[in-house]
């Protein structure tokens, strides 16, 4: 069985993708970039940095691209997976510390938290409000306090990424709803501090309408999951 793969969903990320792949290769990880039908040089830059590239024939969204990575890892017998964004928000050097608890079997999923003391990350007011809201929702619904429920910087074992390859995984913004689903599925979740940079240009949740849609969607999913029979991990 192969060991670890780094999955990077990317859409028009030619500015950052080369450096990210190089850094990940530097720490000995196999890297797969899921090019979500970019119009720029994302795929060729990722290839030249040494990554494998899987290309969607049409733009399917962040969640779908991420899930393609899960499916690829599951089909190719990888044991562990680390996921990070292609926009330079996540520091690739932290991938190792994220993987540690998963490889040591202390957790099924390890979330990189930007609020545990490493680096300086100051989100906008709206984003802070959203994060606090989801923290409280998760605490109320599952009893678990997750300091960074919207972090996309995560490491997981085979059980988790095989589980997330199913149909319940959301296509657009997989965030607190997925953490909730995994907690309900009895996954062991741990957080470790990571460095994150705020990239206002590329943030998925930029704009009031987007934020409102996002909040409503996640809440709707959280309510739906409360009544759904969730399969155990």
């Amino acid at each position: 069985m192969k060991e670890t793969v780094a999955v990077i969903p990317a859409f028009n990320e030619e500015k950052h993708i080369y450096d990210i792949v190089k850094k990940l290769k530097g720490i000995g990880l196999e890297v797969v970039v899921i090019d979500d039908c970019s119009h720029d040089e994302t795929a060729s830059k990722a290839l030249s940095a040494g990554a494998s590239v899987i290309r969607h024939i049409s733009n399917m969204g962040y969640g779908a691209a991420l899930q393609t990575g899960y499916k690829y890892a599951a089909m190719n017998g990888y044991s562990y997976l680390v996921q990070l964004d292609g926009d330079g928000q996540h520091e690739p050097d932290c991938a190792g510390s994220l993987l540690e608890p998963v490889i040591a079997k202390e957790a099924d999923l390890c979330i990189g938290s930007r609020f545990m003391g490493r680096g300086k990350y100051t989100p906008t007011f709206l984003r802070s409000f959203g994060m606090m809201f989801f923290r409280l929702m998760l605490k109320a619904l599952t009893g678990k306090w997750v300091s960074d429920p919207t972090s996309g910087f995560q490491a997981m074992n085979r059980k988790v990424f095989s589980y997330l390859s199913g149909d319940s995984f959301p296509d657009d913004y997989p965030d607190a709803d997925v953490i909730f689903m995994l907690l309900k599925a009895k996954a062991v979740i741990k957080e470790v501090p990571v460095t994150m940079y705020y990239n206002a240009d590329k943030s998925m949740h930029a704009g009031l309408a987007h934020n409102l849609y996002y909040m409503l969607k996640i809440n709707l999913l959280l309510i739906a999951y409360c009544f759904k029979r969730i399969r155990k991990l």
Partner: protein
Amino acid sequence: MQNTQFYAPVLATLIFILVTVWLIKNERLKENFGVFWITISLAMLLVAVNIRWLYRIALVFETYNIASISYSLAIFFLFLLGLFFSAKMSSYEKKLKNLTQELAILKKQAGTEK
């Protein structure tokens, strides 16, 4: 009831059924949707033939006006239809996503992409 009040809706419904059958025959409407529309057409025909039912329904809702009750039922039906098609679209979207993902992975494994 005047003749036109009876024949107009019956004629409209028959045209609707004929168009549905024609669309299925020419493979421009899938038969599973065809069954749905034929059922709707037959229901409309039934109401058109027994227009008194509408008066009774109007009385139940205390509207005393069959135009109002017809519009209300039509709007309710259209909302249901919208919901039904949203569910259908969601299901197709899921299938499309799975196909795109499988295709991308298989292309990678077949070596057509590096």
